[in-house]
């Protein structure tokens, strides 16, 4: 029996389709395939196919803990799935907006396989049933408002015609509750200006005054704008008068940074008295694209559960055609509360921190261990430190392989996705022997990657980032900054470590750095000779303040903490993705959609570790 069954008696043809549906399970993964892999789950091996759109899915597969900020989104996905639909939850269940899970299992591959088996019989027996209840959640409700497509300031609750232009008002959906509009949530970046357009650069050179009420412009060269009449410096034509409305001139990058920049909201114009619908009026104040055409922009959500991006990244792109004109990013808020519990004993603090980031648990465990050890002034034996390096490097290899899988998915490079994902699953929890046994496979992957046609042209020049202080980890090293916490780490120095550096600053360089680091990681594991998960050392009743830095697969994470009598009373965590998140907006501006997603992907973000 499943809650999302279709209405009807299970008989005849319906039984046949139910049997087929039981064999053909298609899963939409929440929060994302990357998280599922990090938990060691192989969805396809378990017998489900992963799909990109909730419309094509029959199973909503929820993996791990879903932060409160994402539960609404999960409910939306569930609501948009076609019946019969099942909710399959792996791990602890705190899904307040979703219905009771149809199948619940623990987070492991065996449990997943068992769950799939149960799911199959649930579909075969319960895909149709006579009594079905609607699924409903507050987030799904909308209020209908009526607005004029040309005058967005006209909004009313009743249909009718626009008092300004007489057009029929168009129904528009607004959130029923004010709780989750764009503007109410803290946003990191909201930016939709057009300062990169040549038109504006040009205008700036001409040194014009934006506050002028009237402007003269050349009909053939819209970038030529001046205050007094005259002739065009480029073609000699007479300039024509153009009305502007003070600072609302588009050259002025003057879209105020309000988040509600829907396409129609750009035109705050006062042509209410015009009987004729003026297109000039509509487009006059629109920001111009790089080719000088004033187009409508739309805000399109690409997340939090988007197949081509890390799960949990709440990304909204402002698109000008298929070019990115601006973006806004939010994060699920991480597992913030994990750090905020007061006065944990060191052991449970370490366990907690290891769960902060599902994508790199070993690194955070190590970070917590080191910080507590530093605070307590405990020395770690060299052999343990070495084995910890092994574990950290194994995680780095697995994480980079996971990134390669995401990269393969983003670029539609199927073979890479498949190969890297399966290697990641194998490496992730492998012992030293198994890791060494996988060496030839990894070497083959890398060799084949180097010979792939189109790969270079697809990635070179995409997502170029000037070297700056905000870069961490592989992203920094791909920009030529040898920023690596491992360089100062004595246990790494003993193994003969040198950081990988590239000068490209683009997605290709990041790809190369990560691939190189996989090879280096393997060498380091060989040198370390052991892999051992960092375990908390008994620190007794020590007090003090300590700090530690660990080079996670995404860059340096730092932890400062205060110990009082063996308990952690204050902790402060600094993570690489927090800094990288702020890079997204300038990085993707004016890129084509595919390139923009690739550029975001090349940063290898982990939304979970972001603190605000």
């Amino acid at each position, binding site marked *: 029996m499943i809650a999302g069954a279709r209405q009807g008696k299970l008989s005849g043809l319906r039984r046949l389709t139910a049997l087929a549906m039981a064999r053909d399970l298609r899963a939409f993964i929440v929060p994302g395939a990357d998280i599922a892999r990090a938990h060691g789950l192989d969805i396809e091996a378990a017998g489900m196919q992963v799909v990109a759109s909730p419309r094509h899915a029959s199973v909503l597969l929820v993996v791990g803990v879903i932060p409160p900020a994402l539960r609404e989104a999960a409910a939306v996905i569930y609501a948009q799935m076609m019946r019969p639909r099942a909710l399959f939850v792996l791990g602890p269940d705190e899904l307040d907006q979703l219905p009771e899970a149809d199948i619940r299992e623990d987070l492991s591959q065996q449990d997943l396989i068992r769950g799939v088996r149960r799911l199959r019989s649930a579909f075969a027996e319960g895909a149709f049933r006579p009594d079905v209840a609607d699924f409903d959640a507050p987030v799904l409700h909308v209020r209908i408002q009526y607005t004029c497509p040309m005058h967005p300031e006209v909004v009313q609750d009743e249909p009718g015609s626009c008092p300004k232009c007489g057009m029929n008002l168009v129904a528009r959906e607004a959130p029923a509750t004010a709780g989750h509009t764009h503007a109410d949530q803290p946003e990191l970046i909201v930016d939709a200006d057009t300062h990169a357009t040549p038109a504006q650069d040009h205008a700036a050179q001409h040194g014009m005054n934006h506050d002028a009420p009237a402007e003269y412009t050349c009909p053939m060269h819209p970038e030529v704008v001046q205050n007094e009449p005259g002739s065009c410096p480029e073609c000699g034509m007479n300039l024509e008068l153009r009305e502007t409305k003070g600072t609302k001139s588009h050259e002025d990058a003057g879209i105020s940074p309000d988040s509600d920049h829907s396409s129609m909201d750009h035109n705050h114009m006062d042509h209410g008295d015009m009987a004729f619908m003026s*297109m000039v009026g509509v*487009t006059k104040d629109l920001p111009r694209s790089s080719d000088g055409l004033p187009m409508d922009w739309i805000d399109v959500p690409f997340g939090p559960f988007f197949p081509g991006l890390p799960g949990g990244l709440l990304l909204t792109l402002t698109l000008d055609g298929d070019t990115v004109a601006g973006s806004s990013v939010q994060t699920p808020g991480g597992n913030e509360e994990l750090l905020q519990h007061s006065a944990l004993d060191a052991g449970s603090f370490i366990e907690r921190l290891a769960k902060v980031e599902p994508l790199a648990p070993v690194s955070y465990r190590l970070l917590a261990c080191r910080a507590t050890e530093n605070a307590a002034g405990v020395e770690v034996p060299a052999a343990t430190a070495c084995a910890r390096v092994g574990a950290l490097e194994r995680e780095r290899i697995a994480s980079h392989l996971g990134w390669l899988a995401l990269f393969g998915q983003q670029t539609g490079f199927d073979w890479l996705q498949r190969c890297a994902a399966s290697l990641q699953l194998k490496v992730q929890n492998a012992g030293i022997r198994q890791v060494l046994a996988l060496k030839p496979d990894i070497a083959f992957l890398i060799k084949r990657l180097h010979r792939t046609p189109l790969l270079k042209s697809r990635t070179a020049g995409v997502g170029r980032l000037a070297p700056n202080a905000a870069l961490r980890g592989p992203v920094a090293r791909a920009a030529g900054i040898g920023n690596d916490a491992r360089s100062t780490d004595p246990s790494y120095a003993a193994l003969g470590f040198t950081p990988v550096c590239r000068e490209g600053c683009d997605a290709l360089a990041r790809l190369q750095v990560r691939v190189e680091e996989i090879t280096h990681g393997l060498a380091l594991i060989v040198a370390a000779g052991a892999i051992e998960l960092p375990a908390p050392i008994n620190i007794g009743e020590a007090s003090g303040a300590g700090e530690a830095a660990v080079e996670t697969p995404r860059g340096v994470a730092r932890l400062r903490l205060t110990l009082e009598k063996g308990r952690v009373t204050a902790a402060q965590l600094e993570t690489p993705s927090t800094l990288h998140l702020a890079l997204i907006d300038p990085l993707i501006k004016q890129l084509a959609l595919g390139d923009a997603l690739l550029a975001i992907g090349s940063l290898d973000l982990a939304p979970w570790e972001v603190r605000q």
Partner: protein
Amino acid sequence: MNVELLLALVTGAALFGVGIYGALSQTNLVMIMMGVELILAAAMVNLVAFWRYLHPDAAAAQMFVLIVMTVMAIEMAVGFGVAIARFRARGSVEMEEAAELKG
């Protein structure tokens, strides 16, 4: 009088009428071009009908249809070129507004 020829010619006439209506009534450059396309299409129908029922052996009639088709394509290419230029300069392809702004 052949019924089929008449049908074809009436179709052509109707398309011609619709095209004239469209070209005259629309305020927008792109829509006006659609009217013109329909007028040209009407010409093609007539040409094909004349070829089929009056001069089936004259390949020149078919050649003429190809030329009309070429004219359609050219009209579109140039028309859209002008539309882009207008839109870049003024943000509109409305004909009336173009007139208003001239003043």
